[in-house]
């Protein structure tokens, strides 16, 4: 078993953190895992992304030529990574910022209003956790509870209980919402 996800978005959207939480959850589950970020100056102002590979045997390459799952938090990320997703894979599209449907037909699209859902929860910055919920469902190898646990470990410094709580809520919300029927919603501008 080897499953891979690319988390991609605009710097500041928290995609690196989301990937790291998933990686931690996988580790706590006793799995092998690698987390590989894009790094350095290109992060500033531009896009940020990370790749998480989860497996039950030692992982060869942490670079993934055909990820099973893509989380695209903004348009440029979708443009860049959609072509690389493995056939039959899943693309999670942050509909709050992306105004086009998938171009490919051999992958499954999951459309999620990540920013809006986070705002509804009163924590606009938790859009990444909403999206992570969807990733967890699409990936199917790490239990949601383990990821909730990992959020606590990543964010849970003393006095940050509320933050952990609302992020866990966002994770669950995303997980739950992404269970909805996968048909693409209506887009104002076609891609």
């Amino acid at each position, binding site marked *: 078993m080897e499953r891979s996800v690319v988390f991609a978005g605009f710097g500041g959207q928290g995609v690196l953190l989301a990937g790291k939480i998933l990686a931690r959850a996988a580790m706590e589950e006793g799995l092998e895992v690698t987390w590989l970020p894009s790094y350095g*100056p290109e992060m*500033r*102002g*531009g896009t940020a992304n990370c790749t998480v590979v989860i497996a039950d045997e030692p992982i060869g390459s942490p670079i993934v030529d055909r990820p099973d799952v893509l989380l695209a938090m903004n348009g440029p990320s979708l443009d860049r990574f959609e072509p690389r997703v493995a056939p039959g894979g899943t693309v999670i599209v942050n509909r709050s910022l992306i105004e086009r449907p998938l171009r490919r037909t051999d992958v499954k699209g999951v459309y999620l209003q990540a920013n809006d859902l986070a705002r509804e929860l009163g924590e606009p910055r938790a859009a990444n956790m909403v999206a992570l919920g969807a990733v967890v469902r699409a990936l199917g190898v790490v239990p949601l509870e383990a990821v909730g646990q990992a959020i606590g470990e990543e964010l849970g410094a003393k006095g940050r209980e509320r933050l952990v709580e609302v992020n866990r809520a966002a994770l669950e919300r995303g997980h739950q919402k992404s269970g909805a029927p996968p048909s693409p919603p209506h887009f104002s501008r076609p891609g």
Partner: protein
Amino acid sequence: MPKTETMTKVFARPRSLTEKKFTYCPGCHHGLITRILGGAIDKLGIQERTVVVAPVGCAVFAYEWFRCDGVQAAHGRAAAVATGIKRANPDLVVISYQGDGDLAAIGTAETIHAANRGEAITVIFVNNQIYGMTGGQMAPTTLDGQATTSSPRGRDPATMGHPLRVAEMIAALQAPMYVTRQALYDAKHIAQATRAVEKALRYQVEKRGYSLVEILANCPTGWKMPPVKANEHIAATVTGVFPLGDLVDRG
């Protein structure tokens, strides 16, 4: 001058800059300094004989933002590279654009000796008190107590020393023609800095010798401050450590 209906354009992109977007973070003074330099090059009409030496640092792309010949120098060596260019062809106007890590840490020797030899170059020294490009480590100019990724508990003068005052150090040498420290935190200081940059370049054009314009710049990302707050911090705190004004003007 181009017009919109009955209106005249009173502010436009300097002609000596290319169309490329800056890669800097929102609010970063590097962009502003680039614009000021472009304006000064326009004003002096020296675009066709200027060479911009870009450092390693957030301004690494600087050579590509000017419609002038440009070169990217090794970290800290821009003053040496500028020396090489100027000695090879004294008719060129050579601008060495450098950050504080570049100029005041690794490049200390090149900085001091180019100044001491009185190389006829113009050094633009962007003192943002941090290593921007590499992710916010301590610079020689970092303020006492300032937390950075390599001084997580704040700069401790007992083991890390106090901020290095470059303009003062260069001003103490005999050769430099013009040494000044400027800031950009409000319109008045932007205008002053603009005049300083113009003067520094003019001195070079007039073959008078070496000049250094130190500019107290922000680094909203490295400082973890919104840009407007970062500018206020310069006005309120940074200028206390690095006093503004001309230190030497032998022009």
